[in-house]
């Protein structure tokens, strides 16, 4: 009788068993990377401190009894005083340092985030186009990057900031517009190797246009290096911004940033050291954490390096 034989019975029983059995779990590349990141204690501590700083900078101002621009006439040039609720003291104008520090940190973080986003976007698009089209396009585009590299960078930032006025938004964009060079180089290098892969060929065979291929197939595969480089760009931008503010070209009164606070503190360092100390500690802490997170991410996402 044709139909279900013994062999079929055995096989289907075996198939049922397989179905209920827990298949061994595969580990994706992301899992591996996350595991390496979690094992890196310095990076994890830095992530928590960074998270805390961000939270405090954005939520903290609602719990501080003073705003960053209110003047307390009864407490001018006072060191930290818990009874009067000036936990970090006040400046020459009687403004609460804690409130100003929180606002300044917030401003520095916003500048860093926006400028990094601008530089990452320009860098990715530019690098991916140069790398994907290759040949003469690539040669000309990368020659331009070399030109930009050879320019005295800080002079250009100063020119841009001076020329486009002192609005914070232009400051963000100006800094970001100059920081994209290294990003473009990294992305181009990655794209050059990505475009030889089979899935790009498949997309081409399927009739996808170059722009679609770049946006849908190449850019998502650049996530690793982009994330690493973006984390390493943030501290550079914070330093640039605070330096410009230090020169008096950045964020303007009554708003403030870490650089502005440090430059004001540095002028009165002998009589009111707290005005320099607290912003300086905040800036250094921020930069330290960011650099640990960046290094941790690089080690986690780029196992070749180890």
């Amino acid at each position, binding site marked *: 009788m044709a139909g279900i034989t013994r062999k079929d019975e055995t096989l289907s029983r075996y198939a049922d068993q397989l179905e209920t059995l827990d298949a061994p779990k595969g580990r994706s590349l992301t899992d591996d990377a996350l595991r390496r990141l979690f094992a890196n204690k310095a990076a994890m501590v830095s992530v928590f401190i960074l998270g805390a700083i961000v939270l405090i900078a954005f939520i903290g101002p609602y719990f501080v009894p003073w705003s960053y621009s209110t003047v307390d006439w009864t407490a001018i040039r006072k060191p930290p005083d818990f009874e009067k609720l000036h936990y970090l003291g006040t400046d020459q104008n009687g403004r609460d340092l804690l409130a100003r520090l929180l606002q300044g940190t917030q401003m520095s973080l916003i500048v860093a985030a926006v400028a990094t986003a601008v530089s990452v976007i320009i860098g990715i698009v530019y690098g991916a186009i140069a790398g994907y089209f290759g040949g003469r396009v690539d040669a000309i585009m990368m020659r331009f990057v070399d030109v930009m590299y*050879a320019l*005295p960078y800080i002079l250009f930032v100063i020119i*841009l900031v001076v020329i*486009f006025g002192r609005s914070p938004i232009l400051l963000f964009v100006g800094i970001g517009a100059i920081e994209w060079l290294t990003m473009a180089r990294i992305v181009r290098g990655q794209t050059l190797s990505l475009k030889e892969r089979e899935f790009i060929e498949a997309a081409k065979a399927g009739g996808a246009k170059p722009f679609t291929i770049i946006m849908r197939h190449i850019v998502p595969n650049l996530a690793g290096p982009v994330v690493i480089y973006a984390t390493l760009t943030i501290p550079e931008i914070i330093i640039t911004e605070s330096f410009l503010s230090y020169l008096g070209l950045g964020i303007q009164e009554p708003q403030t940033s870490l650089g502005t606070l*440090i430059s004001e*503190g540095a002028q009165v*360092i002998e009589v009111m050291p707290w005005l320099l100390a607290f912003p300086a500690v905040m800036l250094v802490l921020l930069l*330290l954490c960011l650099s640990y997170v960046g290094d941790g991410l690089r080690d986690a996402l780029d196992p070749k390096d180890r």
Partner: protein
Amino acid sequence: MLTYVLRRLASIIPVAFIAVTACFFILRLAPGGPFDQERALPPAILRNLRAAYDLDQPLVIQYFIYIGRLLRGDLGPSMVVQDFTVSQLLALGLPFSLMLGLFAFVIATVAGIAAGTIAAVNQNKWPDYVLVLVVMIGLIIPNFLMGSILQLVFGVYLRWLPAGGWQNGSMAHLVMPVIVLAWPHAARISRLMRGSMIEVLGSNYVRTAKAKGLGERLVLSRHAIKPALIPVVSYLGPGLSYLLTGSLIVEQIFSLPGIGRYFINAALSRDYGLVLGTVILYMAIILVLNLLVDLAYAWLDPKVRYR
């Protein structure tokens, strides 16, 4: 080697030309002009002033006038600092800025290479850990903050060094600016040097050299140093331009008489000639130095010459 030099020289000229052009037009696009004042000048005087500096011509004509002068080595007059040409102003500040930058460069490079080598030889022992700490401090603390801290500690509390200024040209006034400028650069170099030296020390030919009985010092000086220097040399170009432009910042912090003090004021007051002149000068210096670095690179690594 000669063809390599010529090829590199030929590639510099278009780069410089494009950069000057871009800078010229960006500056002119900015709102405001060099003769804007709190009290507006009478129109007749303004017209004459603009004519005297060729500002009444169409932008493209102005550009060709400027380029024509530039080719003859003339940077034109300063539009805000009266009775001075741009070249005169730059000549006043340049020697100091160059001296500061080169001083820091030499000290940082030597210190960085030495520290990196020592750390690599003593890998994971205390000199290595000390170096990591010093490098971290140099990379994390921005130069203007480092400047303020040093001024406070050594200038105000301990009174060992003058906190700023440049009265009679004593070397003591240079110590802190050079340290502030050189530290981050030395930190990067020592990091690079340590990494490449560790790699070289683990290579086969170093083992062979040791196996044939060469002492530690001879192995380092004859076999290991040169190949280990390659990544360091490739960083010297960017590092030097970073130091030269960085000296503008340090001049500002320590109120030193270099080019930095003119530049920011010139940009604020739209002194087109002086801003462009400073940019061109720095660009020329950086491009030439980059060329020298490339040549050094070609000398260290023969593969580069034939590419």
